[in-house]
């Protein structure tokens, strides 16, 4: 059980290390605009293949990359209804304070529990390795369920 978690996190870490190659790219349609291409998906040549990494039927991670931005969406496993409600409330609490986290997305992508949006500006200001460590630690924390009281 723990070994699959370790493999799952290693896989996500390796994929993020490879996929986080972002550069500044001004919008092609509108002048003087700079938008994260992974959110808009207007030009297919700027997008890479999205990658879905599943650990089992309930837990998965979707990584979508483009030239100037990267979106990571996570779905975590909930054992029962109570945990479902607790996790939803906790993640909603975090999402509402997304500005403090910088890389968090205010609304998760449809079908997932929480989403991160990393742009080239984040990669310029923050260290790439630390960003990846942050996301992997976030998942570890969720899987070990520190906030569970049982």
């Amino acid at each position: 059980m723990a070994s699959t978690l370790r493999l799952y996190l290693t896989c996500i870490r390796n994929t993020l290390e490879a996929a986080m190659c972002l550069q500044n790219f001004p919008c092609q349609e509108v002048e003087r605009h700079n938008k994260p291409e992974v959110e808009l998906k207007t030009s297919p040549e700027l997008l890479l293949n999205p990658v879905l990494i599943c650990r089992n039927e309930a837990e998965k991670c979707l990584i979508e990359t483009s030239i100037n931005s990267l979106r990571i969406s996570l779905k975590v496993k909930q054992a029962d209804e109570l945990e479902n409600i607790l996790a939803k409330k906790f993640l909603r609490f975090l999402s509402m304070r997304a500005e403090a986290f910088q890389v968090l997305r205010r609304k998760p992508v449809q079908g997932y529990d929480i989403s991160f949006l990393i742009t080239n500006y984040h990669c310029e200001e923050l260290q790439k390795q630390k960003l990846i460590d942050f996301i992997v630690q976030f998942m570890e924390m969720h899987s070990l369920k520190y906030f569970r009281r049982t």
Partner: protein
Amino acid sequence: MAEVKKSVESDNAEDILTKIENKSLKIESLIKQYKFIEAIKTALEGYPPRDERCKSANWIGVHKALMAIKDVEGMLRSLDPQYYDILMKYIYRGLSTGNRTTCDQCLKIHEKLTEKAGFGCILRSLADTVNTV
């Protein structure tokens, strides 16, 4: 000129499907003979097909060969480097299925393959939007 090419391709799809079915039978027989490395080499050979049905048929064969592997390290040692990229693409396809046993096996192979082939292999599988599996 483009129309002629398209009709030729749809004829070829039937041929490709039959070729893939033959390949599947060959892979199954190799697995029964415990020749796992030859099975995976046969599965990975050949250009990934264009047609969706051919891709699904090809994936079934590769899936059988991947699930039969017990010794991941040995398999990677004996596999030619030219097959790393295509193997990585099939691993990501396996990871997206969500089936527990497939994902377990694919995660194991992914870790070892990244150690061997490096991050460039992952990036090539992400960036290649033309030859997808």
